[in-house]
Structures are given as structure tokens and as C-alpha cells.
């Protein structure tokens, strides 16, 4: 995938704190082309947001130590002059945040905030910018945009605020749009509308989109490619079809099993992943997932000593970082997708009993998850 619009190579973002070095992102690589959508999935503290902030250059002025490469159309943003990254920010790459209420300034009208975003990068009169803001608000589905442009954020509903945030992000026609949990703070009914809007606008603007979420349903709907992150590292990376069809990492299995699915029997229990995400200061040795993994006994003790590398075991372009052999993973996934939780696997984690739900036979499709 050389020559992609966005290329991230071995990105590491570490923070020096009083408690020790936080390895928030530790060797992440991926690439993204125009018109494509990448979903970055993981639990809280897996480094998803830190990665996206790193791409946007929003760690400037903090104590973050960033190494590796972030190339946007060939231009390396890690070593670039901060002023240059600021120019790109908002114009060539833009970002939508999780909570649209706290992400908009309460003292300025929605219109003013969009106008501001537009005028930083475009030398136009205020009147022109205002008309542009009204057009954008109309485009993202705000009714009566010429009136609502003078409203303050608190006068908007949650969904409308997120629409306005999207309008703000799109004001300069960015080529890369990063959406950091864009629907987490919203009503379920509004979530689908916002996701539809993002995907409509993407086809309209032709930009590349990164969606960061812990909700597999969101990426199932939108993403072409998926990057599963765990403890600042990539656990699995591949196309959405591959990851939902034939997930190749025990952590991804856990994520899928912990999520409700329309194609499963209603009596099927959701299976949580035991334990909690590790501290990023004391990341477990070897595979960071091994304290929570049910299959560590199958690898001959490599899990807690050796860091697994990403390798493409099944199909090209679909890589996972796991010590299990390809055959073993195929066998385990076949068992899991048949509705069985690995009975022969020992329980490595004491905390959090793993419910072994009633086995539902029959219709288990491995296709897309309808969320």
C-alpha cells in the first residue's frame, strides 16, 4: 500500500509522567487512501485517541515524545515544523470529537465557530464565510440553517451539535477526517443518523475517514479497514470483511463475543472479556493481552516472554499479533463461531467469572454485523 494518502509507520507516542513512562502508543502502523474509511477499535486506554491526536499534531506543547512516521501525502508530520502542521490542521485534516457540547465553545454562536474555522485557512470576507457556514449547516441537515447559524451551542440538540461539529470540520474540505467516538455521547436513534451523514459526506467529498470507536457496530457499518488496538499496540489489522468474517486474534474474538448481535439467538449470553485493560505504565511483558487471554497454555509459554509481531497468517493484508499458530487459531475460531466457548481452555484470570452462555445452535452467520 505504498503511496497512500496517509501512511503511519511505527508510531510511538510516550508520555513522561511522575509515575513512569506511559507508552500510550507503541509501534502502530497503518495506511489509508482517499475515499476509504479506517475504523480504529479498542477499549478505553488502548491508545486510539492518542493516535488520532498524534496525527493531528495535537500533542504539541505537551510532554509527549513522538517517534516514527506520519506521512500525509508524503509529508512527514512528526518532524515537520509545528507551524506547518497547524496550517494543515483544520484545512487538510480535520477532527470531530466525542462530546459535541463540551467540544464547542459555549460563548460563541455555532456560525461564528464555523466561520472562524473557515477563515483561518481561507482569506475571505466575513460575509462570504457566513454564507459558507449557512451552506454547510444546510448540508449536514440542520433545518433553517440561515436562522440557526446565529444560535449558541446550548440551543442545539445533541445530534444537531454533532452535525454542526461535522460542518465545522468540513468547512475547509479536508482530505482526512478523523472522527473520535463521534456517536458515543449521542442518543441511539441519533447515532445512526450521524453515521449515515458521515458516510454520505465521505462519498460526496471523497475524503479519507478514520473512525475511532469502541463500538464494533459503528465500524461494521462504515469501515473498509479495521485496526484493532490493545494497550497501545496493534492486535489485528485488516479489511472489515476479513475481521468480521474471520477474526484472527483472541482479543478480537472477545470483542465480538461481548457485543449483541441481531443474527444470534436472543438467549445467547454476551461474554465479557475477563479482567481490565492494563496500565500503560506497566504493560505486561510479552503479549500485552496475555493476562486476559484464554489460550496462553497453547503456545508453550511464549506469551508472557515474547512480544508477538504482526504477521499475515490467513489472507494478504490481514495481520494479527498472536503466538498461536494459524491452524490453532482457525480451529479455535471455528469452535467459537459455532457458538462454543473454548471449554478446554483453562481460566487464566481469577477476576470476573466468564459466563459460558447456553449454546445456541443454528444460524450463526459470519457475515457483517448489523448494528
Amino acid at each position, binding site marked *: 500500500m505504498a503511496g497512500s494518502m496517509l501512511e503511519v509507520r511505527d508510531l510511538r507516542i510516550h508520555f513522561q509522567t511522575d509515575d513512569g513512562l506511559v507508552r500510550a502508543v507503541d509501534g502502530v502502523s497503518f495506511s489509508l487512501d482517499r475515499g476509504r474509511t479506517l475504523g480504529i477499535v479498542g477499549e478505553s486506554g488502548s491508545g486510539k485517541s492518542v493516535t488520532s491526536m498524534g496525527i*493531528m499534531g*495535537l500533542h504539541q*506543547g505537551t510532554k509527549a515524545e513522538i517517534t516514527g512516521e506520519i506521512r500525509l501525502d508524503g509529508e512527514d508530520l512528526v518532524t515537520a515544523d509545528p507551524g506547518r502542521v*497547524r*496550517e*494543515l*490542521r*483544520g*484545512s487538510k485534516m*480535520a*477532527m470531530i*470529537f466525542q*462530546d459535541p457540547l*463540551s*467540544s*464547542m*465553545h*459555549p*460563548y460563541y*454562536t455555532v456560525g461564528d465557530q464555523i466561520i*472562524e*474555522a473557515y477563515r*483561518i*485557512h481561507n482569506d475571505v470576507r466575513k460575509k462570504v464565510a457566513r454564507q459558507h457556514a449557512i451552506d454547510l449547516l444546510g448540508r449536514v441537515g440542520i433545518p433553517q440553517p440561515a436562522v440557526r447559524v446565529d444560535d*449558541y451551542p*446550548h440551543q442545539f440538540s445533541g445530534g444537531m451539535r454533532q452535525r454542526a*461539529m461535522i460542518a*465545522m470540520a468540513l468547512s475547509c474540505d479536508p482530505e482526512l477526517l478523523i472522527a473520535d467516538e463521534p456517536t458515543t455521547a449521542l442518543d441511539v436513534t441519533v447515532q445512526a443518523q450521524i453515521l449515515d451523514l458521515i458516510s454520505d459526506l465521505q462519498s460526496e467529498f471523497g475524503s479519507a475517514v478514520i473512525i475511532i470507536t469502541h463500538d464494533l457496530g459503528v465500524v461494521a457499518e462504515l469501515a473498509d479497514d479495521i485496526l484493532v488496538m490493545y494497550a497501545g499496540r496493534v492486535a489485528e489489522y485488516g479489511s472489515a470483511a476479513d475481521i468480521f468474517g474471520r477474526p484472527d486474534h483472541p482479543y478480537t474474538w472477545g470483542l465480538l463475543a461481548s457485543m449483541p448481535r441481531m443474527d444470534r439467538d436472543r438467549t445467547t449470553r454476551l461474554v465479557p472479556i475477563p479482567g481490565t485493560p492494563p496500565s500503560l505504565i506497566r504493560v505486561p511483558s510479552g503479549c500485552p493481552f496475555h493476562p486476559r487471554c484464554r489460550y496462553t497454555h497453547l503456545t508453550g509459554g511464549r506469551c508472557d516472554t515474547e512480544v508477538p509481531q504482526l504477521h499475515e497468517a490467513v489472507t494478504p493484508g490481514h495481520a494479527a499479533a498472536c503466538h498461536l499458530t494459524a491452524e490453532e487459531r482457525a480451529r479455535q475460531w471455528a469452535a467459537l463461531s459455532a457458538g462454543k466457548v473454548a471449554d478446554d481452555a483453562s481460566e487464566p484470570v481469577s477476576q470476573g467469572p466468564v459466563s459460558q452462555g447456553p449454546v445456541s445452535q443454528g444460524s450463526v452467520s459470519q457475515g457483517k454485523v448489523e448494528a
Partner: protein
Amino acid sequence: MIFFIIRRLFMTVFLLILVSMITFAIFFLVPRLAGQSAYQLAAQYVGRNPIPSEIKAVEAKLGLNAPLYLQYGRYLKGIVFGIHYNNGTDVSYCPFPCFGYSFRNQQPVWPQLISDAPVTLSLAIGASVLWLIGGVSIGVLSALRRGSIFDRFSMGVALAGVSLPVFFTGLIALELFSYKWPIFPNVHYVPLTTNPLLWARNLVLPWVTLAFLYAALYARLTRAGMLETMGEDYIRTARAKGLPERQVVVKHGLRAALTPIVTIFGLDLGLLLGGAILTETTFSLPGLGQFTILAIQNQDLPEIMGVVMIASFFIVIANMIVDILYAVIDPRVRF
């Protein structure tokens, strides 16, 4: 917005009436409850070794024998419209706004208040401009360079500023800059209209002394406010837009951090306008603060009441302005 302001105006008038009632009650009701007669009260107006007939005349003239609510009515009427005093033989008119006559010199209180107010006004406004600019900019810089030498140094000085009383810092300033190095010799009040240059020059030390106390407080407040707002999500949004850091700090950060500062500023200024007692005394400035001190020392009831009414007027008005400003600054407060 208009309704909001009108409602606030009504509230303000109501509050002022309440203050006048309480003040009146303290100075007329409480002594009467304690057993002071109208005759004894009237005696205070007449001076030493009064003749009983004179006292009786004053008592009749000021209507001190009337029921208290009537007296209060006359008091309020005097403030709002002016009032005629009549004891049968002698009619005198105390024009609006009448706060009665001073025990000391039998002169109406209001003209004395008015003549002293410009001194306090000059002191308070000059100092407040200094401390607002100084305190806020030091606070912002400290917040942006948190943990730096500048931050530690200025917060240390701020702690000293908050802790040291004006009569200490003022005297030190006088000793150093008026006597040892006479940069500002012979500090005394010169009216602005007489000589603006001398007015400013003589007020520099009082301004700086008073501003030092408040700037310290404002620097700490601003620093805390900035540290909080700069961590807000909308600051991240502003940066994500590609705004230059300067605009992020001033337009997005400071704007939000200023709201509580404006509130406190209004109250502080209102409070000071009623008399900066310590500063005025330290620098011998003949303002409302000095007037207050004298009035209290002489137990001059009408003067004390007048000064209390003026001070509370400033505070209540400042409060109202702050509330209206608040609605202007923060759109979420508007109704």
C-alpha cells in the same frame, strides 16, 4: 434581555430600600429600644452644654418624637425628594438627596459626601485598572508556563501580596519612594480638574499599593481559571481548527476564564467605591474612607447612615452591572 435588565433594576431598587430600612433601624430603632429618648437623641445635634430649649427645638424640627415609621418615611422622602424642616418659627429646606444634618457641623451630609467622593473614585478606578491588567496578565502567563520559574516567582509574590495589609505595604512604599528616594514626594490629593499631572503623580503610590493587594488575588484567580479552561474540550477543538496558539489562549481560553473574574471585579470595585478606608488613611487621602472614620469617631449618626447608604448603593449597583455583564458574556445566562 430587556426584561432581564428591567427585572434586575427592580431588584436593585428593592434592595436599596431594604438596606435603608436596616440602616435606619440600627441607628434609630435600636437606641430607642435600649431606652434612649428623643430628647437625648436631639441633644446630640446641639453640641456641648446645650440649653434645654434648643434641644426641644431640634427635637421638634427633626420630628424625633414622631412614631418611627413616620420618621423612616420622612428619611426616605428626604433622600428621594428633599424635605422641609419646620419647627413653627424656623423653616429650612434640605434639598434632594437629603441624608440629614451632621452632628458635628450642622451641615447637610450629602454635599460633604459628594465633595469626598472624587478622591475615592480616583483611587479606586485607577487602582482597579492597574490590578485588572496586571493580575490577569500575570495569571495567564503563569498558567501557560505552569511550573516555570516565572510561575513560581509570581505566585510567591502573589501570596505575599494577598497576605500583607495595605498599611504595611503602603508605609513601606511611602518610606522608600517618598522619603528615601523622593520620586513621589509629598503625597497629597490634588483634584483632577486642578492639575491632572499632579493628580496622577500623587496617586501613583496609593494606586500601586492598593493594586498590589488585589492584583495578587486576581493573578491567582486567573491562573486557576486558565488552567481549568485550557483543559476544556473546546480548547482542543480550537487547536484542531488550526488556530494560532495565541488566539486559542486569548479568544477561547481567556474569554471563558474571565467570567468569574468579572463577577469578583464588580464586587471589589463597588466595595472600594464606598471608601478604601485603609489606603486612604495610610496616604492621608480625604475620601469617603476618611469620612467614614471621622463619622464613626464622632458617633455622627446621620453621617454614618449617609456613608452606609452610599456604600451599599455602589455595591448594589456594581452587583447589577455584573449580572447584566454576565448575561452579555455568557449567552447561556440570557433569558
